[in-house]
């Protein structure tokens, strides 16, 4: 539990004059579920994008198992073992559910142009392998009954779960979920909680960005709170829940609203 997988070291991210992240340090440990919360515009998604290499940080470093992410190309970040889902679903809408997952699985295979044209036996073998692996993942997420349906025709809940299946197909060490419960009803959220716990049991480390406090508090081992681009708390869910700074910044507002 103690080995650091992802190390966010004093990261500052500026866009023009706007500081989205201000000297944020954060560590994700092997095998844990870390919840990252904060009010809208607190910098959660920016944090996420820096982590997955969409942005290079203005200052500070992000390293994954000791490798500096800024030095990697974007598609290589997947290969070192970081996968993500999107807040607004971004599936390949014209492909079937199975094909969507297979695109993720392909990331682990060596692409060979010659092999693809000549259909070598290795190529065929790998193709079969990724098909089977992708099917397993669909089963794991409980959506294998619609494997051949085009992603755009899947129900919303299926689409969300398909995104997770696709991310898992890249064989990540760290799975980053960006508001996976958005738009879910309580029963679906309950199912999602179980799924996330099941994913961790399989040996994945999970970073969870979520609005819904129920999901975050129930599932996370540890919770970090961002506000105006700064980390204001980091600890066990129960402690964070009672932290006055957090209540002022986020939970208090949330309580008044509901």
């Amino acid at each position, binding site marked *: 539990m103690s080995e650091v997988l992802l190390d966010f070291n004093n990261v500052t991210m500026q866009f023009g004059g706007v500081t989205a992240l201000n000297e944020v340090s954060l560590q994700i440990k092997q095998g844990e579920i870390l919840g990252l919360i904060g009010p809208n515009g607190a910098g959660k998604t920016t944090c996420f994008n820096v982590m*997955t290499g*969409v942005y290079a940080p203005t200052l500070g470093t992000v390293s994954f198992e000791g490798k500096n992410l800024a030095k990697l190309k*974007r*598609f290589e*970040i*997947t*290969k070192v073992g970081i*996968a*993500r889902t*999107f807040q607004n679903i*971004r599936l*390949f*809408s*014209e*492909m079937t559910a199975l*094909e969507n997952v*297979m*695109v*993720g699985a*392909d*990331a*682990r*295979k060596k*692409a060979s*142009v010659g092999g*693809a*044209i000549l*259909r070598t036996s290795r*190529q065929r073998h*790998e*193709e079969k392998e*990724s098909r089977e692996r992708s099917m397993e993942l669909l089963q794991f997420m409980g959506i294998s009954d619609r494997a051949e349906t085009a992603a755009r025709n899947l129900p919303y809940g299926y689409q969300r779960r398909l995104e997770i299946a*696709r*991310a898992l197909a*890249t064989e990540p060490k760290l799975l980053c979920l960006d508001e996976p419960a958005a738009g879910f009803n309580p029963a679906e959220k309950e199912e999602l909680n179980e799924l996330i716990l099941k994913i961790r049991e399989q040996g994945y480390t999970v970073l969870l960005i979520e609005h819904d406090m129920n999901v975050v508090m129930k599932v996370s081992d540890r919770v970090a709170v961002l506000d105006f681009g700064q980390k204001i708390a980091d600890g066990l869910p129960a402690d964070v829940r009672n932290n006055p700074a957090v209540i002022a910044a986020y939970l208090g507002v949330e309580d008044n609203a509901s």
Partner: protein
Amino acid sequence: MPDWLIIRTFWELTVTGLALGSIYALVALGYTLVYGVLRLINFAHSEIFMVGTFGALLASSQFLSIPLLEDGNYPYRTGMTLIIFLVFIMLIAMLFSGIGAVVLERVAYRPLRGNGDAFGAIVLAFLTTFIVSLVFVDQAKINVIIALLATAPISYAYMRFFKQGRKAPRLAFLISAIGASTAISEAVGVWSKHGRDQYQTPRLLEKKTLFTMFGTDVRIDYAIVIVGALLMMTALTLFVNKTRLGRGVRAVAQDAETSRILGVNVDLIIIVTFALGGVMAGGAAMLFTLVYDQTRFNIGFILGVKSFTAAVLGGIGNLKGALLGGLLLGLVENYGSAIFGGQWKDVIAFVVLLVVLMFRPTGLLGESLGKARV
């Protein structure tokens, strides 16, 4: 009576229209593939076709040493020899066009995508110096030496320029495309053996009637063009739909950013896309020389414009659209020129395009490479 003429020759016009349309369709695939993946209209694709026709010419007249006339007759071949020769010529044409398309992407487009691309910078530096030195010296050898010497510092300068992370505006790609198109065709027009003259390609195939259908003689070369084009398109569709690289092409076409995050090597997929389009254009080029027995440095221009029209007509970015658009354009042109006269041929093609786009701005089948399925 013109109406009477079209009825009498309807089936003949259909056959020739389909053959011409097949060639349009094959070239249109290249426009559509690149547009689907990069949202870029690769205007230099017409020159990739032209390069393919010269590939076919080289293959038959140089590699196979077939003369234009043997003892005063066409150098006809028959049976297996003919088939092997045709396949060989087609493969060479595909090789020329395929490599041409990949090099084009490297030199004309990738540097604009701006990642401090070392290869692009080196090629650009070499070309710059070479062209500049051409103005002062007229010995090719010395020019090459000067260019080689100056490559390192200039490419370093280019790298610094691109490293600033400026993304080129969309217009830059278009200008680069037009520049590359002119550069390729003029290079052939200036430096090839007969320059701007027409080249005859050896006529290997006796163009006799293969069979008669609806009272029309179907010539063997037309039959080969139609069947060959259909086979190539089937192969392409299978590649795009059934292989891992094809899946990558579709993924990038639908959402390049997400593909990249999922670990798809987008640059590789772009190379594959250009290569696929090039290979299709190469096949089209060989089929073209089979029917018309000739080529020229600017042969790609009108054919390219027509094929682009075909791609837009069917719905650019859509593989099935390219096929439909190509065949339709070939037919409409043929029927139209029979009704109104041959000089109206191009007018008809573009009027049809205008009318279709007025009512269906995304083409007959709509845009989207991702949607393309068998």
